[in-house]
């Protein structure tokens, strides 16, 4: 158990789940960076599932399923943790209150729409937003360290309960989580890094369906190439394009659809393990991030109807990205794993 008195240090991060996890681990006495957590927890991915609709738009995601990063990181580092959701909101509320009153910093899964301290335009019905609650104000509001915010925030009880017990896809059911390492624990990073890379490489290259990983990028390229014919309403076309860009840039990705963040992990791992192949992969993944940024730029130009490049450039660029990422991950598989 950590001492109740030690205050929680808020660090802003690019991504909410890896950020909440790294902030919690650091608070518990295990200094790790967000990038390290993102890599060990196998955060990087690509999915394009046109039949799964989020707000009527095809699901595109650059990351793994929400909620998996925390658990995987803890397991691979051998850190004991608690991860519990509640069928009964009252019990869930009490459990959080007791832990916080006991001086514990607690990770909480929320629906970002109901968090009043976030900028209005960041709010949408998304049930996978992770924050850390670590105290109470004299007015009985929760003291919240939201990884995507640049400062510590407060949240009234009513909003917090709403956010924790919102229904729908990925409903949080009041999920609370925190690592509980023994004092002075020194986890081994090398096997954890390897396990994290192995899973990401496998998912990017080996899933035998066209929707995931490198195949998913090619698949999205083919779909996007057909959008102008299929989506005859120009407003629909621009909404579809904008949605892909939002998933890539807006939702706490650190830019380039998490590619830069994962590159940071590879670089840090290279320094830690002395494997030059990781450093090289980091460099090339940064290039891939740059291509994703270019893709975002021209896609939004098209969506806005102010393009100076032809539409065909969008799918072509995606194919380039797919080829590059296939090379990167194949190389990692051959020379690192």
């Amino acid at each position, binding site marked *: 158990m950590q001492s109740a008195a030690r205050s929680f240090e808020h660090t802003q991060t690019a991504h909410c789940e890896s950020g909440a996890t790294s902030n919690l681990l650091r608070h518990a006495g295990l200094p790790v960076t967000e990038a390290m957590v993102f890599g060990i927890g196998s955060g990087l991915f690509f999915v394009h599932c046109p039949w799964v609709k989020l707000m009527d738009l095809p699901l595109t995601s650059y990351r793994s399923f929400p909620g998996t990063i925390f658990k995987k990181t803890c397991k691979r580092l051998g850190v004991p943790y608690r991860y519990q959701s509640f069928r009964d909101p009252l019990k869930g509320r009490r459990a959080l209150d007791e832990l916080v009153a006991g001086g514990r910093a607690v990770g909480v899964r929320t629906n970002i729409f109901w968090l009043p301290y976030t900028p209005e335009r960041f709010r949408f019905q998304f049930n996978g937003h992770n924050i850390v609650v670590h105290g109470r104000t004299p007015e009985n509001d929760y003291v919240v360290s939201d990884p995507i915010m*640049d400062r510590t925030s407060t949240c009234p009880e009513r909003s917090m309960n709403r956010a924790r017990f919102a229904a729908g896809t990925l409903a949080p059911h009041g999920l609370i989580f925190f690592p509980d390492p023994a004092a002075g624990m020194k986890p081994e990073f090398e096997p954890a890094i390897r396990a994290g890379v192995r899973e990401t490489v496998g998912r990017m290259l080996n899933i035998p369906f066209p929707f995931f990983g490198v195949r998913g990028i090619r698949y999205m390229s083919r779909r996007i190439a057909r959008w102008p014919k299929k989506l005859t309403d120009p*407003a629909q076309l621009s909404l579809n394009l904008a949605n892909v860009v939002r998933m890539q840039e807006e939702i*706490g990705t650190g830019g380039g659809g998490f590619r830069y963040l994962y590159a940071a992990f590879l670089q840090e791992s290279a320094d830690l393990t002395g494997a030059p192949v990781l450093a090289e992969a980091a460099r090339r993944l940064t290039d891939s991030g740059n291509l994703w940024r270019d893709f975002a730029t021209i896609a939004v130009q098209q969506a806005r109807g102010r393009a100076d490049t032809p539409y065909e450039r969008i799918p072509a660029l995606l194919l380039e990205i797919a080829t590059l990422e296939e090379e990167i991950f194949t190389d990692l598989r051959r020379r690192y794993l």
Partner: protein
Amino acid sequence: MKVEEVPQDRARSYEGGSKVCYAVDASGKIVKTPTSGWTVEESAMSIAWDAIGSTLDRIRADVLAGTASPLAWFMTMRQMDARLLAQNLGISTLRVWWHLRPGVFARLSQTWLSRYADCLDIPVASLKDPAAIPESRHAECC
């Protein structure tokens, strides 16, 4: 992306705050860098928000014409559809769909109205009052 290339476009949606992204510094190290926004990201975001805004305006017109219930407007304002609203209330989607019809909505009991108002976090009174629906989605309505 190099650190000095990280966009600082002062996006309106950030409300003066900043976010973090990762970029390469002069020594080749990938570091966390604050950003005040990127016009490309901001554009993509406004396309999405404008779509929500125009849907809300269309529903508002329908409510005033009597072909939609105010519930439909408030539901959409909370970025919900009938399914999500039903899930949040723990009732059947069909039931919400039925209640959304203006005629049925007008005859709803006080209990139902307060359940909906509570779930959407709005005062019960505005749920019954088409005049409570603001024209622009930017105006704070409750």
